[in-house]
């Protein structure tokens, strides 16, 4: 009758691992999640090897230079400004489009997502060419804020839709005004979503090179890039990269703390009653002006500039090239998004469903590659593939692997949030009805989380489309994406020639962005 072998005494270690109430994470999740985490940790390994090449003392010397600290301060300062501005833009637009009677709410929601489609280096270029005096901190902050606020808008809008309106109503019945209610009751509940968005923004700012280099604001990444220009000594770049990873780890740990005990699925059955939208009344006009101004700056302005370039273009462009670059871009971005999403799923499920230390460690390690500049990720994969996977070198799979390393957290965050939306009891019931963990994942978890996972895939697709440094290093020889063509054209000084590529990037990325915005 008994299905297992002879009874044996469990070791104390094994017994302590399976404390009451904690479900053991099934291997079918642990194995792929571990693989994903290891992949994400590759750049860290590479940085370690390179940073220590000349010993600890040398590495420490570089890390502790006054200039290093100054740049770190500048990077963190920029990140703080951009995060704060993104929170203001993202939360205000989310609240206006989800909770008020703002006219054209759905259109504004889509417009608030569209900046995702504009590569930040393109946006930076349009700003700087229009107003050269913005160079430096103001330009960098403006560009990055308008490029990044959708990362806050999307999760916060989703969270706003999930909050039970009864709580807000209770607060208002106790005499709190609309604003007070928002600050005291709504805002605290938005904290996990806002923090999740904020961390993506902060890491984007820390790892971005394109826009800070165009707006001429000296940051940590610029120092890393200049270091690579030295070519023969990769140690300084690696040491600086290590400092950046350390910053990332600290930021991610801080974000994890804001999650606290919150964030689990709503217990009520069915869907929450849709909230009664707040009447804006005489505030309608200012609210519309605000949304209009943000959209104009973040979407309208770069598009108009691009349009202008398209019309003045003197150096003709090759439609066949544009087409082949488009096909290549869609191919790599689709494959990259698919693989990233598939690998993110087990990590996201583990992090949503298992609160053990292993799950947390796995989730945190996927962030390792996200704050490292693309060039470092690219060189790390060159380093490892040349040594251990030579047949993959300069082949599509390696490029896909780089995208996974760079953007896993984007997909993991979406998968995690999506899985948290459905109560875990559904999975337990499915198992009690005879389904193995893998089949539960396939038949219950994934179908229920599908919209959120799909949104994550769309977002990943968009960010991969815009990626340049790692693509340059790892693409199969002769393959051109829209981003690399854009780079070539601007390198040759042909901004008019570059415009069609930039325009196609924006148009292509606008489709998934539009779908993301429609959802919200």
């Amino acid at each position, binding site marked *: 009758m008994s*299905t297992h*072998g002879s009874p*044996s005494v469990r070791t104390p270690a094994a017994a302590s691992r399976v404390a*009451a109430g904690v479900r053991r994470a099934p291997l079918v999740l642990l194995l792929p999640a571990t693989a994903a985490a290891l992949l994400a940790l590759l750049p860290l390994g590479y940085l370690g090897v390179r940073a220590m090449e000349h010993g600890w003392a040398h590495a420490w010397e570089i890390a502790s230079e006054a200039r290093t600290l100054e740049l770190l301060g500048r990077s963190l300062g920029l990140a703080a400004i951009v995060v704060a501005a993104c929170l203001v833009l993202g939360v205000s637009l989310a609240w206006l489009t989800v909770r008020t009677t703002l006219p054209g709410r759905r259109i504004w929601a889509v417009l608030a997502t569209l900046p995702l489609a504009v590569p930040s280096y393109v946006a930076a270029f349009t700003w700087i060419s229009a107003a050269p005096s913005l160079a430096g901190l103001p330009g960098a902050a403006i560009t990055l804020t308008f490029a990044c606020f959708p990362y806050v808008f999307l999760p916060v809008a989703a969270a706003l839709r999930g909050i039970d309106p009864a709580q807000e109503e209770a607060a208002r019945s106790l005499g709190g005004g609309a604003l007070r209610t928002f600050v005291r009751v709504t805002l605290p509940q938005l904290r996990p979503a806002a923090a999740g968005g904020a961390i993506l923004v902060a890491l984007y700012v820390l790892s971005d090179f394109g826009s800070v280099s165009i707006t001429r604001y000296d940051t940590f990444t610029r120092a890393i890039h200049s270091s690579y220009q030295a070519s023969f000594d990769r140690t300084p770049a690696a040491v600086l990269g290590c400092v950046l990873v350390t910053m990332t780890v600290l930021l991610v740990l801080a974000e994890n703390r804001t999650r606290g005990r919150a964030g689990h699925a709503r217990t009520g*059955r*069915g869907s929450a009653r849709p909230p009664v939208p707040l009447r804006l009344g005489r505030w309608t006009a200012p609210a519309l002006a605000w949304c209009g101004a943000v959209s104009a700056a973040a979407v309208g302005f770069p598009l108009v500039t691009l349009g202008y370039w398209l019309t003045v273009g003197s150096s003709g462009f090759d439609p066949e090239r544009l087409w082949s670059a488009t096909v290549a871009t869609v191919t790599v971005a689709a494959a990259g998004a698919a693989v990233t999403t598939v690998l993110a799923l087990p990590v996201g499920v583990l992090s949503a469903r298992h609160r053990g230390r292993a799950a947390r460690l796995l989730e945190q390690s996927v962030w390792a590659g996200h704050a490292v500049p693309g060039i470092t990720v690219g060189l790390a994969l060159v380093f490892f593939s040349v040594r251990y996977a030579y047949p993959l070198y300069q082949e599509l799979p390696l490029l896909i692997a780089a995208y996974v390393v760079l953007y896993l957290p984007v997909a993991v965050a979406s998968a995690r949030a999506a899985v948290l939306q459905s109560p875990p009891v559904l999975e337990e019931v499915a198992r*009690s009805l*005879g389904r*193995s963990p893998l089949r539960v994942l396939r038949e219950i978890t994934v179908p229920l989380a599908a919209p959120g996972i799909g949104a994550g895939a769309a977002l990943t697709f968009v960010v991969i489309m815009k990626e340049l440094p790692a693509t340059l290093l790892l693409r199969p020889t002769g393959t051109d994406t829209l981003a690399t063509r854009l780079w070539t054209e601007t390198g040759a000084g042909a901004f008019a020639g570059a415009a069609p590529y930039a325009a196609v990037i924006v148009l292509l990325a606008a489709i998934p962005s539009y779908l993301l915005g429609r959802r919200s």
Partner: protein
Amino acid sequence: MTGLRVTAVTSSYGRGVRVLDGLDLTVPDGELAAVLGPSGCGKTTLLRVIAGFAVPDAGEVVLGGRTVSGPGVHVPPERRGVGIVAQEGALFPHLSVARNVAFGLTGSGRAERRARTGEMLELVGLGGYGERMPHELSGGQQQRVALARALAPRPALVLLDEPFNALDSALRAGLRSDVRAALRAAGATALLVTHDQEEALSAADRVAVIRDGKVVQSGTPQELYARPADPWVASFVGDAVLLAATAEGDRATTALGSLALTAPASAPGEGTVVLRPEQLNLAPATEEAPARGRVTEVRYHGHDALILVDVPTAAAPVTVRTTGSAAVRAGDETGIRVTGPAVFHPKAG
């Protein structure tokens, strides 16, 4: 054959906080048993151990003669044959009612599956609802589908986790007896986990009261109510009047006078007697009444009323249940008469 046997199961959180502390429980085949306890007593952990979602530190779980948890043995949930009816139904929102019910019917042909699904839906009174989606059903209907889904694969055991919690009280009683009838008809062994004593007493053949991770008393609802194992069980299972008492033979002296005991005290001495409010009757406040007091509160329930009477020598007001409208008001003097024997619990230690 035994349906479920749980032996000496121990389970603890992280740093040695014991949630289950050597718990024993037996449910005979085909019976509906209830596990009753306040929140935090360990009932949820017990349920998860039985279903296979938690691994106990020690002890054994035997289902239909097969050890599913024990030293070196852990059968995963999907191979235990334990059906679950969760608090709020937990129907799969993306599947129709029929697909929900058929979910556990793997390994059988399509026709057989359809037949069994129809049969189960008929059993819970929802024939013809197969094509609906879960959100199109009321809370009570969702619970019925959840039960049909759990019963469909003919599980060795059905676990019902506070299944009526989220329902209106008007619906509860009806659904409770329907569930009971369905379980009976299916011949299933079932374990109902609840903190609601009324639910446990009215639904189950047998009730185990749990406190601090242990079963403190197990028996039929009648036994539990009439002969609670200790004053705590007495006040947890139904309303109780607890009085300090000095026992001698088969009588005890209390603030309500000398009372007959259900069983002679093993040794004379101090202790507590338990009475049920319906054993107390109001009497005219005359000299003949064994005890007198002042009415402090009248709680009117329609079919009956509870009257709290402050008796000078009792530590707390005693509760008297009267049927029909109460003839007294707060502030009135009243006499109290006791009918039937009291249960005596000697002072511990």
